């Protein structure tokens, strides 16, 4: 055997995920029909995932994938029986000129095509779960089974979600023209929101076998890093990447081996990932002075202030409060206001924080949200009012939407009651 040596499955997986959006955009460029191209591209990725670890990575992996995907696309179109499909066949089957794909040393991806693909997957006509699923598959190169496992739903359910999303994208007449001006800003905001949701989903979830149940927070960081390479001058893209890194840095200290939550104040800061903190801090420090400060940059800046403090007591709460004031102006949101209330309490005392929370209770939905009640419990405890704090912790535990949170809050209630 003269071919390249067998390679690790993880290495192949990594390469395939990098190439996934490039293969899909090349196919859609050539043949149109987003729906069919996405299926074909996914099949090519699966073929490579089984063949390459044994046979080695081909000299031009991107060209290999595009060739295989194109063949699959042809097979698929030929096997379609409907009249409509035959009409489409006429357009698709016209032979492409030359070899598939540029040589291996060519510029790997057309930046604008990759962006257009990402914008398409986060199309405003799709619900957020559909945007997330489609982005992970079409841009992230994850299989339907992997995405289903990551979200804990049956593969059939996820397949339906993705299929419906692809039909919607095909229906909007997917093309590679990029929006401009205000529309571009809005579409990019939708993309960042999807990436942030993926990150949060992963941050909340438990660890799994990385190859079968992908770590969504790592995937979100990978995709945001990729987007940052495409748009290095965009402050909010850099801000989101920094926010993810600075938040993910605390992951090792955030839970105990039994899965229970450790609040920021009690985390072993020695366990924080200093490399991620350094990278995130460098990113946010470089981008903040540019002036166009948005909500992700501000949240990253807040995370950076927390991360640089060696103890909870060392935390520069005055700076954090100032950043929350700016964040409230930039992106008013009841949860931002709630976090700000805690910062107010740290700077001006628990009573001042409780007054801010009291104002938030005017919103009925907020008044019964477990986060508000838990924050109120914390501040009441700081104020020495343990009786009402215990009652609040218990109430918050009842309303919590995740098991570790519920356990943590119930534990606080029993600690104060006991």
């Amino acid at each position, binding site marked *: 055997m003269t071919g390249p040596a067998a390679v690790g499955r993880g290495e192949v997986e990594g390469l395939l995920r990098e190439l996934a959006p490039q293969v899909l955009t090349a196919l859609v460029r050539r043949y149109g029909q987003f729906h069919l191209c996405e299926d074909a591209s996914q099949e090519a990725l699966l073929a490579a995932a089984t063949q390459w670890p044994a046979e080695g990575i081909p000299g031009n992996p991107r060209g290999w994938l595009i060739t295989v995907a194109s063949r699959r696309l042809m097979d698929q179109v030929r096997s379609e029986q409907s009249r409509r499909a035959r009409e489409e066949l006429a357009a698709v089957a016209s032979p492409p000129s030359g070899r598939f794909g540029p040589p291996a040393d060519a510029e790997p991806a057309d930046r604008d095509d990759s962006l257009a693909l990402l914008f398409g997957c986060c199309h405003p006509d799709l619900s957020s779960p559909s945007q997330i699923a489609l982005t992970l598959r079409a841009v992230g190169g994850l299989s339907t089974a992997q995405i289903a496992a990551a979200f804990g739903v*049956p593969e059939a359910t996820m397949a339906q979600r993705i299929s*419906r999303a692809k039909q919607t994208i095909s229906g909007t007449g997917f093309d590679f023209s990029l929006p401009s001006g205000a529309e571009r800003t809005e579409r990019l905001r939708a993309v960042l929101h999807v990436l942030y949701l993926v990150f949060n989903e992963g941050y909340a979830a438990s660890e799994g076998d990385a190859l079968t149940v992908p770590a969504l927070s790592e995937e979100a960081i990978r995709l945001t890093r990729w987007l940052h390479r495409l748009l290095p001058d965009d402050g909010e893209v850099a801000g989101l990447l920094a926010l993810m890194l600075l938040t993910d840095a605390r992951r090792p200290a955030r839970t105990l081996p039994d899965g229970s939550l450790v609040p920021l104040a009690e985390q072993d800061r020695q366990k924080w990932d200093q490399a991620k903190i350094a990278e995130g801090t460098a990113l946010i420090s470089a981008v903040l002075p540019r002036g166009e400060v948005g909500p992700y940059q501000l949240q990253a800046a807040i995370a950076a202030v927390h991360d640089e403090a060696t103890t909870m007591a060392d935390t520069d709460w005055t700076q954090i409060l100032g950043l929350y004031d700016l964040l409230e102006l930039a992106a008013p949101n009841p949860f931002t206001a709630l976090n700000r209330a805690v910062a107010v309490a740290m700077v001006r005392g628990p009573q001042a924080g409780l007054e801010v929370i009291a104002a938030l209770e005017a919103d009925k939905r907020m008044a019964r949200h477990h986060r508000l009640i838990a924050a109120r419990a914390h501040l009441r405890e700081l104020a020495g009012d343990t009786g009402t704090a215990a009652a609040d912790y218990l109430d918050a535990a009842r309303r919590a939407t995740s098991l570790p949170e519920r356990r943590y809050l119930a534990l606080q209630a029993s600690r104060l009651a006991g």
Partner: protein
Amino acid sequence: MKYLLLIYGNQEKWASIPAAEWPEAIARQDAFNRKYQATGELIGAYGLADEVQARLVRREDGQPVVTDGPYLETKEYIASFYLLDCESEERALQIAADMPFADVDPVEIWPILHEAKPDL
């Protein structure tokens, strides 16, 4: 977020529905199921057998003991359940409100906090 929708009933209630209306009722429920399976939000829809077919299982000295039961105190018991995975509580409430049965009786909705991870 996952949600459980529950519909309650009993034999008396089912018997009160005229036979001629069943095909229509089933068709409406099937349409509901198809609609939300297609959106990828309905993970599963399950109808339960009658109360008299339910059993209680316990272990005594390491041996399983099966008895009839549960001899419910409540008049109505779970007739069917639906497992949803959707974006928000608002969306889950919207889907519950679209349940054909919601015309007759309230549909119970419970957020699901945790589950055993699927084994791939």
